[in-house]
């Protein structure tokens, strides 16, 4: 039990800190600290351009993709070193938002399934931020049922071996700024649903690919729909065998779990600060016993997630593989943030309805209120996460599956009310 750095870790931290101090775009720091809920906070510069510049600098000095091997442009650092880097990078980490999916999920999938030549071609520009990747998995009909996807890839009838893709993807973060996409398709609807899938990568410039932003409930547009109309993909851009797409996708999804940090935020630190300043009937809100009770329950969730993250890092540093138990982070953080936002607005009284720069903490709690429903859904809904914990952590039986051994085309697509 020890929160101190080892001498080696302390040396690494000093090195990282010195380099960041000398190289980070300090003129952006104040803006970046305002980042919230999908917005980088940047207004004085284009966030993507600023992100690419920072990533390039990091790559040149060996600080990019610390978890990747050096031959692909990575830093080959230990898990603890990555954590230390993240702590030191602080607000500048927001600049890497556009690369999260490429570095965390697409890159490792390419590494695992592409041939060496492709990896050496595709990965270094991804590591250095020259190229951005997105993940084309979810579909309107899919939702939690990821394998229920309907985007079809069929062999071209011209003998070229190329594939022709038609269909629609949804919830694609960053599609509008991506150079490459990792695309899962259905190549055989006559077999059960997990068996007829095939994975490809493709340039987002390929003719027939159309990206349309989705306006979200909170007014932001972080996600996109991507339409495919007779999009031609050479067979050489296939990852894994035909029909092996589900297995390939699991590499991607498992890597999602590897991106552990210090636990997700519940919004508690902000609420605590707010309650130190706000008043209830003339006294500091923090002295109100109802506020204290709620705060205490939020506090132990925040700190529980924080130290769960540290326990995971400890395990990682001892060589353990992070498992499904890390599903608790988003499950707890999403629901807590939503409750917490409602509570913060309640303390603001009728003024809580106002969402402006003049609101407490520049309207952060209003933004949390409006963003948190998405947190409870994206990347695995609360219900899917509880299934994962129940089944994969606690070993309970799966749900009864009616779609398991049925040819995909025979699975119903619409209920009746």
């Amino acid at each position, binding site marked *: 039990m020890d929160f101190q750095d080892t001498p080696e870790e302390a040396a690494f931290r000093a090195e990282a800190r010195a380099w960041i101090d000398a190289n980070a775009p300090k003129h952006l720091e104040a803006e970046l600290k305002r980042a919230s809920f999908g917005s980088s906070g940047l207004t004085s510069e284009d966030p993507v351009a600023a992100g690419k510049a920072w990533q390039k600098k990091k790559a040149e000095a060996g600080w990019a993709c610390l978890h990747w091997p050096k031959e692909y442009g990575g830093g080959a650092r230990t898990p603890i070193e990555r954590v230390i880097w993240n702590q030191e990078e602080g607000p500048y980490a927001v600049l890497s938002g556009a690369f999260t999916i490429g570095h965390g999920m697409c890159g490792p999938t390419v590494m695992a399934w592409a041939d060496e030549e492709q990896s050496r071609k595709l990965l270094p520009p991804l590591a250095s931020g020259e190229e951005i990747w997105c993940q084309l998995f*979810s579909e*309107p009909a*899919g*939702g*939690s*049922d990821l394998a*229920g996807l309907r985007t079809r890839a069929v062999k071209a009838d011209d003998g070229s071996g190329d594939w022709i893709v038609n269909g629609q993807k*949804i*919830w694609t973060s960053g599609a509008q700024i991506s150079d490459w996409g990792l695309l899962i398709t259905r190549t055989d609807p006559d077999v059960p649903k997990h068996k007829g899938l095939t994975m490809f990568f493709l340039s987002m410039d390929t003719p027939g690919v159309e990206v349309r932003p*989705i*306006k*979200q*409930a909170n*007014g932001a547009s972080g996600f996109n729909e991507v339409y495919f109309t007779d999009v031609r993909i050479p067979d050489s851009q296939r990852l894994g065998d035909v029909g092996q797409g589900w297995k390939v996708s699991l590499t991607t999804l498992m890597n999602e779990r590897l991106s552990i940090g210090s636990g997700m935020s519940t919004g508690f630190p902000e609420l605590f600060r707010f309650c130190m300043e*706000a*008043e*209830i*009937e*003339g006294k500091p*809100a923090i002295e109100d016993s*109802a506020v204290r009770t709620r705060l205490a329950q939020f506090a132990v969730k925040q700190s529980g997630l924080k130290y769960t993250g540290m326990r995971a890092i400890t395990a990682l540093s001892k060589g353990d593989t992070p498992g499904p138990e890390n599903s608790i982070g988003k499950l707890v953080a999403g629901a807590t943030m*939503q409750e917490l936002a*409602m509570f913060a*607005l*309640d*303390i*603001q*009284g*009728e*003024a*809580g*309805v*106002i*969402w*402006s720069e003049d609101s*407490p903490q520049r309207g952060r709690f*209003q933004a949390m*209120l*409006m963003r948190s*429903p*998405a947190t409870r*859904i*994206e990347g695995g*809904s*609360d*219900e899917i996460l*509880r*299934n994962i914990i129940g089944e994969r952590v606690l070993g309970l039986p799966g*749900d009864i*599956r*009616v*779609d398991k051994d*049925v040819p995909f085309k025979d*699975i*119903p*697509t*619409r*209920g*009746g*009310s």
Partner: protein
Amino acid sequence: MNLDFSDEQKQLRDQVRRFLSEKCPPAAVRKILEGSSAFDRDLYLGLAELGVLGAAIPEEYGGVGLGDLELCVIAEELGRVIAPVPVSSSIYLTAEFLLMSGSEAQKACWLPKLSSGEVIGTFAFNEGQGRMTPDKVQARVEGGKITGTKAPIADGSIADFAIVAARDEADGISLYLVKLDDDGVSRDALESIDPTRDQTRLTFDGCPAELLGGQGEGWHIASVVMDRAAILLAFEQLGGSDRAMEMARDYALERIAFGRQIGSFQAIKHMLADMYVSATLARSNCYYGAWALASGASERPVAAATARVSATTAFQQCSKNNIQVHGGMGFTWAFDCHLYYRRSNALALALGGLSTWESLLIERMSAGNTESAA
């Protein structure tokens, strides 16, 4: 013993529901959300014509002369369709202030116009952050002129006049009727979590203010009228809860995942059951509120807080879980789930937030109205 609306009241409900389903589809609400104007004037005038605005206003003041129970029925229907109109400001509050405390002249002047929708009134109460307390009332009237800032004020951009709570010359709190077309009034529209209802900052710089009710009685009058309005808002929340629950139910029946209707998964089914439980408790508590409102029972303060706490809880729960049942689609701008989520969180704060009403409820119960606890 009869804890239900009468057949006539249910007919009124059906009539209003039919009208609103035609005149206030989600597309009409979206128009306001997306900023075409601050409220749906056609809808509002249509409601006036239908007799909805004047339902509880006596015939002698241009109203229909029905009663409070009818207004409850109407409120529930307005809440179901989250109607983008200033009924709460102009009718539940302003008209009630006039009926309770207005002089004969004031009533004769304003009630017919409120009833016809020709003018809109609002209640300018809030100042600053946090729970309203008497010491927060800083707006001041001297020599018949009012100075001060009130925010956020619902429908402040569109109201023709406001009932304003302000310090009088004896430093007590009195209510004043202030016309908002005066040069001394500035109105700044505010951004809110629910743009389907206007929120505005009103600044008064020496505008004519006419006393409403007794001098120094402002806080008391406001408390009574806010209690009454709280019951009506609870009915709006109840209507919203039911609609959000129905949307979720319908989607759970229609949407297939893993080869099954998602409503066949207990995670979804039980979430809906809990929404139903919450909405049902709210309905029963609202009916208790309606009874207290209409009968003038001494339990009204307790009943108002009960209805309000229960309905706030229900609407927030139903609207947030409606999004959850819809999954990703529920979080798109294009789906209507967020309209209900926005409204539920805005209504939760109107006339004071949940914690305020929770505290009031227990304070009132412990002050003697304890028989309702049994």
